[in-house]
């Protein structure tokens, strides 16, 4: 699986998730939807960071052309923005998505 297709897949997943979730959510801070959104977005954010790490490693390894680096950077940048937007849409501060990764945090 190439990095491009991984990115495409993740992007598709994010879009699909966005599609599944209703436009307006009752953002009750104690509500289950809010908690669920936080869990899901935390996972998505984790995967996004994992992907970024892989991409940087590939760049460091010299395996990518300048053009590929530029394209990948733009794609990752857009992904970051997307997750950021979704967090805000659920009344979450994007920084909340990084809390409590524990042992998983070592991977990123």
């Amino acid at each position, binding site marked *: 699986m190439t990095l491009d297709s991984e990115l495409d897949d993740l992007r598709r997943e994010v879009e699909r998730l966005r599609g599944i979730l209703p436009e307006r959510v009752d953002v009750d801070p104690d509500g289950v939807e809010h908690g669920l959104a936080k869990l899901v977005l935390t996972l998505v954010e984790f995967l996004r960071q994992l992907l970024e790490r892989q*991409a940087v490693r590939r760049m*460091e390894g010299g395996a990518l052309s300048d053009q590929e*680096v*530029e394209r*990948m*950077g*733009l794609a990752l940048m857009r992904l970051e923005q997307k997750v950021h937007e979704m967090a805000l849409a659920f009344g979450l501060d994007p920084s909340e998505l990084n809390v409590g990764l*524990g042992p998983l*945090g*070592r991977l990123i």
Partner: protein
Amino acid sequence: MTLLAHAIAAAPPASLSAGGLRGRPLAWSEAAAGLGLWSTEWTPDMKLERPDALEHHRLVERICAAQPCLPVRFGTAFPSVDAARASLDKRAEALRAALARVAGKSEIALTLLWREPPAREVTLPAAGPGRRYMEARRAEFTFREARRARAESLVERLTAELAIERPLVWHETCTSASVAVSLAVLVPTERAHERKAELTRIAASFGDVVAVVNGPWPPYTFAGVE
């Protein structure tokens, strides 16, 4: 009767002049295998909140001061006394072994915080936005790796200078942007304050971190059974 679990101990139960959470009754449920569960009589509709967690901690401290015990993860509940007993019976051997490991021992917790905030200033090459993003990420990862390596070496130094065996030490590094090391050691209760002072002294010698020491606490980190 729903039971909100606090700690497991060997029978007979110590005589405690303590009540359960929120002024509710504290119960001792004894299983067949000579183990028992300290818990609060709860109702299914009551939701747990932060003050309950802290009260649970204070209660666990009192129980552990009275008899060797295994702290149970906060929020563990049983729908009935029979369910609690059955659970203890099922894991009796492992629980007894864990109890033997922690009896007479307390936990000292050490947190090492980075003095310097994460470096934010990075010179990026003149290039497209995508490349600049990648370079910024690369700089960030390099910095994080360096911190991780430093944190691990701090743990090595601490373990060596404390002259403590590996099974009695638990640690995690870089659990957040501010935390370099989160470490727990299991020490004999009667030496707890002495060991705490030692840990503080060793940690104070590290110039790039601030040390925060807590405890003696009940042996939360070492109570696990597989």
